[in-house]
């Protein structure tokens, strides 16, 4: 019977269905299955009913659908089993490959854990995707910042867009539950917060709208456990916060740790209690003031409302507010982003995202090197198994099957590597949490780096990607491998063709990428170094800091001033102390305050200019080595009841009276407008960021603007930290009830504080990536050169038998390694130039093309690579030529 040129439609459909089966199965039995099906159809057709034909089709489809997955699984099991057996046969290779993979994958996982903690993990509350963060943008501070409570209330009127809006702020507070007071961070939240978020109590209740101006507190779960040992009778007990009595009404559920992703919160209180906590005199308010942009604001969008329509509704509203309250709301626009984009703090601006993207990119590069390394190892293995592969091919294993086997092997490797990495990541995450908690930052920090499904998914996606990428090269090789050539050559081929060239290319790529990592790391280290040497405009060496908090009702403005004077005098009299001075808020700290200024004679309705403002004791400028440009410093004349005086920095003077003498001029400070006379001008300093443009700053005498908390700077002759105990005792002797905290040297404060911490973290991460990249690349190069040399043992033996010098042999091997390294370095420098140009915003004070870093890292890398090739070179040169010739 002649076969028709085109089989009937039923057969073609059946053939299509057969494609569900594994290819091997199809090739083995497909033709027969088709014959069976044709017979079945013939029989069904003979029965003559539609039912019989339809039944056959149904049965056939069901049959193939159940058979196919089972056959695939069986095939995979067989391949995986074979892969496992063959990996077990080469333990050294397997261990090396697994370690490489585990390190590469966990480095990526670590970065992803960090990014996840800040950018992806939603708040553990109801429908977190509806939450948006709302921040103020204005011309006063470069970064987004908070809203005032009156503004929040006005914006919350947009009820057709928002289901509700909440505000919160953190504050350090002294908690006293009997015994000595303890410094904790509390979150003051608008009373609707828990209801709006859907955060529920574990015991007792959470805050409710009825708690307006009620002294009640809700404890965070972890603090309740740590401080009160999980005592369930805590509800109804009273504690004292800053000497105010609060009743504990409940403990919030464990998953809710507050709205801030970075700060460890111990308790929650109604925002309306903040003025009482701040010990504001009756009638004075901070939270009700429209010019205090202190609240972080989160809104919940109504279901179906887009962030875009929320933005436009808020824009309209903010324009209305600007016309109603020009003094405070002019030139204000709002930044509205999903809540997850406003972390770690709404104020972070885009820097965090750029940093996260940069780190993710570095992790990706490291993963590439890792994959290349594993690919290299697999290639070496494939080459040494060339005979086995060729034999299998000759015995009838199809090429696709061999490729599949190789891919399965590297997938099995990467899955085991992924599991190892997942375990490693858990340790890494725990270590990072401990590291963050141990940072002596201004406030206790806490980040939830828990490995959730997102991180696990990322680890296995990354592992699978590494598996596929690293199997590409060997698979490519196996596809091309010519059975005859491999069998004939019998493992005596030298480099230049096949796996040799492919592996050479891989090493070049690896060296290139690791140089990129090294250069980025080097630039970050140099950035940190530059940041450390930025001219701060004030003394940092040999300074010891101690902060005190006088916000207790027992202290009045006058007695606070007395305390400051007495404490300063006592500290200055300590042996080894050169001088001492108070400042109300340290540079780079979170308590920096700003004040509104207007030239004298203008009305209060007119918008003024904002400037940062600190209060200092008369000795400050001398103690902090802030040079006076003109006029005088503060002195004994500037008492509480004398005319108000101020010292301005050069920038503020230039802003207010460009080109004129500022001395003797008068300003109105604050909303009602306290008149004050400029008596001095000092040099600019750094106040908020190390790399800020010159910024306006205004100094007031401590006697005329007496803060509730301040920091004492003592200048010591020797090591400042050695004075810590003495200083604490001296301050305790004046009033043992005044809490003293943050005793550390100014250098420690800068290193661990917002001044340098980010630079240090950046340098640490990129440095670790650079080092890992360097190690991986040298392992890769060592592998290639060592393998190459082993394969050339015969040739080297011949040359040595013919009288070649050992040195010549070593030189030849080194040249091959060096050539690979040098080509990689050239390529790497070009790649690095492109990448660092993209990241240039992050290298403050350093050029992205810094010559010394590029050259230095390239020399280091090539040196390490030469060292890696020297080991096999020496081995080859010292081998006995006779043994070498007998080899193979």
């Amino acid at each position, binding site marked *: *019977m002649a076969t028709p040129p085109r089989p009937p439609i039923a057969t073609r459909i059946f053939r299509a269905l057969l494609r569900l*089966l594994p290819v091997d*199965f199809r090739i*083995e*039995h497909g033709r*027969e*299955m088709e*014959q*069976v*099906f044709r*017979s*079945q159809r013939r029989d069904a057709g003979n029965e003559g009913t539609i039912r019989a034909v339809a039944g056959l089709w149904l*049965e*056939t489809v*069901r*049959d*193939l659908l*159940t*058979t*196919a997955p*089972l*056959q695939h699984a069986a095939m995979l099991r067989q391949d995986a089993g074979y892969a496992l057996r063959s990996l077990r046969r080469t333990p050294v290779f397997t261990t090396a490959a697994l370690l490489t993979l585990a390190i590469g994958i966990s480095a990526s996982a670590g970065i992803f854990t960090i990014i996840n903690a800040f950018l992806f993990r939603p708040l553990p509350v109801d429908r977190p995707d509806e939450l948006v963060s709302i921040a103020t943008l204005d011309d006063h501070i470069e970064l987004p910042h908070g809203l005032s409570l009156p503004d929040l209330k006005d914006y919350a009127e947009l009820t057709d867009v928002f289901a509700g809006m909440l505000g919160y702020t953190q504050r350090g507070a002294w908690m006293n539950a009997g015994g000595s007071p303890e410094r904790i961070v509390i979150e003051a939240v608008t009373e609707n917060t828990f209801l709006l978020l859907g955060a529920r109590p574990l015991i007792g209740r959470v805050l409710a709208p009825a708690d307006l101006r009620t002294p009640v507190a809700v404890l965070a779960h972890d603090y309740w456990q740590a401080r009160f040992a999980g005592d369930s009778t805590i509800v109804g007990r009273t504690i004292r916060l800053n000497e105010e009595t609060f009743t504990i009404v409940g403990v919030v559920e464990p998953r809710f740790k507050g709205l801030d992703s970075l700060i460890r919160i111990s308790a929650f209180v109604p925002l309306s209690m903040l003025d009482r906590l701040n010990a504001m005199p009756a009638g004075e308010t901070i939270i009700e003031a429209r010019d205090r942009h202190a609240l972080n604001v989160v809104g919940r969008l109504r279901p179906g409302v887009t962030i875009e329509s929320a933005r436009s509704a808020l824009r309209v509203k903010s324009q209305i507010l600007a016309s109603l309250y020009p003094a405070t709301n002019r030139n204000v626009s709002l930044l509205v982003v999903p809540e997850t984009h406003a972390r770690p703090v709404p104020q972070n601006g885009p820097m965090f995202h750029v940093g996260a993207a940069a780190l993710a990119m570095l992790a990706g590069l490291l993963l590439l090197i890792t994959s290349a390394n594993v690919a290299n190892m697999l290639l070496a293995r494939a080459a040494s198994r060339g005979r086995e592969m060729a034999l299998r091919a000759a015995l009838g294993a199809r090429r696709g099957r061999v490729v599949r086997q190789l891919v399965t092997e590297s997938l099995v490797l990467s899955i085991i590597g992924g599991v190892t990495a997942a375990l490693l990541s858990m340790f890494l995450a725990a270590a990072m949490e401990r590291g963050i908690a141990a940072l002596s930052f201004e406030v206790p920090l806490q980040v939830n780096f828990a490995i959730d499904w997102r991180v696990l998914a990322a680890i296995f996606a990354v592992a699978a990607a590494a598996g596929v990428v690293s199997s590409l090269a060997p698979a490519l090789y196996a596809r091309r491998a010519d059975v005859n050539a491999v069998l004939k050559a019998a493992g005596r081929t030298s480099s230049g063709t096949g796996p040799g060239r492919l592996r050479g290319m891989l090493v070049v790529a690896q060296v290139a990428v690791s140089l990129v990592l090294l250069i980025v790391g080097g630039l970050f280290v140099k950035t940190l170094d530059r940041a450390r040497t930025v001219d701060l405009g004030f003394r940092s060496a040999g300074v010891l800091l101690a902060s005190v908090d006088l916000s207790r009702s027992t202290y009045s403005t006058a007695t606070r001033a007395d305390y400051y004077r007495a404490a300063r005098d006592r500290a200055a009299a300590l042996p080894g102390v050169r001088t001492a001075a108070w400042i109300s808020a340290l540079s780079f700290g979170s308590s920096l305050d700003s004040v509104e200024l207007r030239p004298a004679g203008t009305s209060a309705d007119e918008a003024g200019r904002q400037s940062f403002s600190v209060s200092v004791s008369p000795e400050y400028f001398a103690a902090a080595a802030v040079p006076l440009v003109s006029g005088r410093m503060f002195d004994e004349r500037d008492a509480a009841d004398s005319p108000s005086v101020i010292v301005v920095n050069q920038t503020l003077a230039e802003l207010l009276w460009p080109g004129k003498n500022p001395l003797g001029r008068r300003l109105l400070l604050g909303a009602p407008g306290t008149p004050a006379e400029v008596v001095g001008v000092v040099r600019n300093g750094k106040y908020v960021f190390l790399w800020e443009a010159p910024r306006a700053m205004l100094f007031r005498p401590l006697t005329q603007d007496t803060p509730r908390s301040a920091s004492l700077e003592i200048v010591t002759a020797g090591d400042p930290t050695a004075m810590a105990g003495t200083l604490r005792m001296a301050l305790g002797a004046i009033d043992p009830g005044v809490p003293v905290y943050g005793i550390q040297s100014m250098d420690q404060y800068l290193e661990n504080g917002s001044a340098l911490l980010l630079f240090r973290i950046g340098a640490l991460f990129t440095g670790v990536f650079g080092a890992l990249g360097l190690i991986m690349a040298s392992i890769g190069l060592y592998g290639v050169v060592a393998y190459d040399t082993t394969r050339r043992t015969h040739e080297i033996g011949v040359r040595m038998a013919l009288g070649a010098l050992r040195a010549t042999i070593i030189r030849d091997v080194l040249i091959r390694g060096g050539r690979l390294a040098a080509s990689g370095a050239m390529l790497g420098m070009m790649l690095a130039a492109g990448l660092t140009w993209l990241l240039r915003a992050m290298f403050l004070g350093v050029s992205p093309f810094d010559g010394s870093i590029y050259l230095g890292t390239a020399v280091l890398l090539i040196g390490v690579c030469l060292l890696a090739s020297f080991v096999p070179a020496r081995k080859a040169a010292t081998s006995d030529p006779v043994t070498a010739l007998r080899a193979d």
Partner: protein
Amino acid sequence: MLHALLSLADGEKHGYAIIKEIARRTNDEVRLGAGTLYALVKRALGDGLIVESDDRPDPSLDDERRRYYRLTALGRTVAEAEIARLEAIVGMARAKNLRTRRA
């Protein structure tokens, strides 16, 4: 699997013949699809229970060069052992006065 082995007990057969034989003997209660059958064949081949036969029993009927399978000695032993096992179970059931109900 046992059905497939049994169907080969009285001589070698090709795939469709196995399906038909099983259907006939079980009164259409067991109807194998092509996929199920060849999954069984593959396993039986791998375990050495059956082999592909070289002879073509009736070349004139063999229109499409079908493959024929026949039971190996091992396959026969396995089938016998399985039947012995089943007989033992039936025997035990009888001893306990359990009866098979027939429709």
